[in-house]
């Protein structure tokens, strides 16, 4: 139970002490009055079509003056005596625990195969719980080859811009970068490709068959960062470096898009390029490796 603690004697720091009651009443009245005005203003603002800043300010004034009114009221006119309440240990008394245990176990008499029954009950709940997990499977398709292939797989496909226009190597200026897709798949999230035209003075250092995946000075890499899949957007032509704006992974375009800085661990997969009969750029197959971020069985 509670008992007043030094309630009679005013203490320094008491909220009520030294407060001018008249003044406090005026403040409270003024605050609530202001809230009324602000609320009316809010209604008028809304009625006249609304205006975000005025709405915010009037709401703030209305809420704020109600808050101030209540707090001043509490500080000036409500009791602030300090009271002391006894605190007992949270844990129950021993006899209560014993009585509870006795009551709880009261119904178990006469049970012979208690162990068997409890294990079976446990098994029932566990299997049912397991069975109820199955519907979760309906939430999404089996993650199979989807992660490893892009629409480039299969027959050679033309590269097209966002608008579906095919591209000739000369459409791209030196140091130019263009985002392209396989024809007919400009909405595929795993297919964005960066087409880059390097400078004639810049020597590409590519390995094996990838040397032949270039058309002139034009080279193509997956646009998806191998870190967490952000589109790699910034090309620093001078050094031939591609920078990912999300986490600053940096790839060396001249060296097979090898990661040279930042958290990305793998190069951007290269796309095999060629020209078709009409001189438009095509991809002769899919990227050299799964695009984008890594996953558990990426290499299988």
């Amino acid at each position: 139970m509670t008992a007043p603690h030094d309630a009679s004697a005013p203490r320094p720091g008491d909220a009520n002490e030294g407060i001018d009651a008249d003044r406090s009443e005026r403040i409270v009245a003024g605050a609530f009055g202001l809230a009324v005005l602000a609320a009316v203003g809010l209604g008028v603002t809304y009625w006249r079509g609304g205006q975000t800043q005025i709405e915010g300010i009037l709401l703030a004034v209305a809420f704020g003056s109600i808050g101030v009114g209540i707090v001043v009221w509490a500080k000036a006119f409500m009791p602030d005596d300090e009271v002391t309440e006894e605190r007992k240990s949270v844990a129950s008394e021993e006899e209560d625990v014993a009585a509870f245990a006795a009551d709880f176990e009261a119904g178990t008499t006469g049970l012979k195969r208690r162990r068997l029954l409890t294990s079976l009950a446990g098994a029932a709940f566990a299997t049912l719980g397991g069975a109820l997990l199955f519907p979760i499977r309906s939430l999404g398709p089996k993650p199979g080859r989807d992660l490893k292939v892009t629409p480039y797989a299969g027959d050679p496909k033309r590269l097209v811009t966002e608008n579906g226009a095919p591209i000739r190597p000369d459409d791209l200026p030196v140091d130019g970068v263009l985002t392209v897709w396989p024809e007919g798949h400009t909405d595929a999230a795993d297919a964005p490709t960066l087409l880059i035209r390097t400078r004639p003075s810049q020597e590409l250092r590519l390995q094996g068959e990838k040397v032949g995946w270039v058309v002139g000075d034009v080279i193509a890499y997956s646009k998806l960062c191998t870190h967490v899949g952000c589109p790699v957007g910034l090309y620093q032509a001078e050094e031939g470096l591609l920078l990912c704006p999300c986490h600053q992974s940096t790839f060396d375009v001249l060296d097979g898009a090898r990661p040279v800085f930042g958290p990305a661990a793998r190069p951007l997969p290269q796309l095999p390029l060629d020209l078709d009969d009409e001189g438009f750029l095509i991809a002769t197959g899919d990227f050299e490796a799964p695009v984008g971020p890594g996953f558990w069985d990426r290499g299988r």
Partner: protein
Amino acid sequence: MTDVSTGSEKVPIGHRTVTHRLARWVDDRLGTARFARTALNKVFPDHWSFLLGELALYSFVILLLTGTYLTFFFDASQNLVTYQGSYGPLRGVEMTDAYRSALDISFDVRAGLVMRQIHHWAALLFVASMVVHLGRVFFTGGFRRPREINWIIGITMLILGIFNGFAGYSLLDDQLSGTGLRIAYSITLSIPLAGTWLASLLFGGEFPGPDIISRLYVIHILLIPAVIAVLLSAHLALVVRHKHTQFPGPGRTDENVVGERAFPTYAAKALGVFFLTASFLALLGGVVEINPIWIYGPFEPANVSAASQPDWYMGWLDGALRIFPNWEIRAFGFEVPNPFFPAVLMAGITFGLLYAWPFLEARVTGDRVEHHLADRPRQRPVRTALGVAALGFFVVMFLGGAADIIATTFGLSVNAVLWTFRFAAIAVPPVVGYVTYQLCVELSRRDGLPTRSRVEFGQITERLRRGSP
């Protein structure tokens, strides 16, 4: 029990006013007088830092109110439409219904933008006040027996709050939130063994997946708020059950609680603080622009804007993703991708340690008795130093999330900035921890508490119990 007033003249209930008649009516049906009186006389110790949890509560209430309003207009659908609303620069652009309806809320629903912005600011304050409240409880030892369960509930609400904040701003399907979702997808994908399945089940297929927005919507407006509401009730019920901790002072012991009665003054002040919180958030929502999605444009998987920063409470994870070296584990065709370490593992360790802390500390100190007097941080140099070291680490992570902004603002190379953060992540925690430890010991010495460098926990508690400051 016909007397519900304390201290003033006795008033027989059932005669005077509407209030009295109503109280009598309720009591005749529920018999609540005794319980209500106990509730009114509940004692709350006063300290400014005990207000932080309240701020989180009030932010949550404001989130529910503004959020409910927003649900009437938001359309969580990934169907493609052509924008015809009143924001000129985007007219004629193809976008999802989610983004279209978010634009409508911002431009064509009267009072929509102010509600949306208050909602967003309230979310930022919600998580912020939970984090600071967590810090207060940690540094004052408020998690010790008997409050371990409430600590666990609190950490759970923090995790849910962070997740729900992320889910919330991911719904709008603008360029920034789409980038965030893509990162979340890749982080899910990085979990060994289960990652590809989890990502597919969550997104309904390969990124961006057909279902993520509508699923996040149900999670954001129903599932998590409901869980938070239940946990919040349990959290408050446990505060009542345990009675609030108090700082040491004259007449304050582990066996009592000294403070104000819940009614009327404390309740009135709390109500006042609710309105002041609402006022603050309304002002921010009205005049300080936040998450201007119309500038970002609709999400296009092939696009990204530079300087993509998440909301503040995700900053530490984003920073960790940038700072962590480009390590991956590959063997037998299987791999543990890089994001697993800074995102999944670090978050797991962070929250795992937070959950385990009350039990770890009790194990190390052997202190398993009930505590109701809050520690002053200086009196627990080891705990305080470890806490500050951890905070130092997270501040480095957080700033790392702004590495690109720091580099462009100060004309530095991003590489240099990131390398600085890599070293700082290792160097800052021990340095600030050591400094904190020395400060605590020195401050304790000035307070006349034991000054040996190794301060025994039991010793301090004993002296505090007898009421030294």
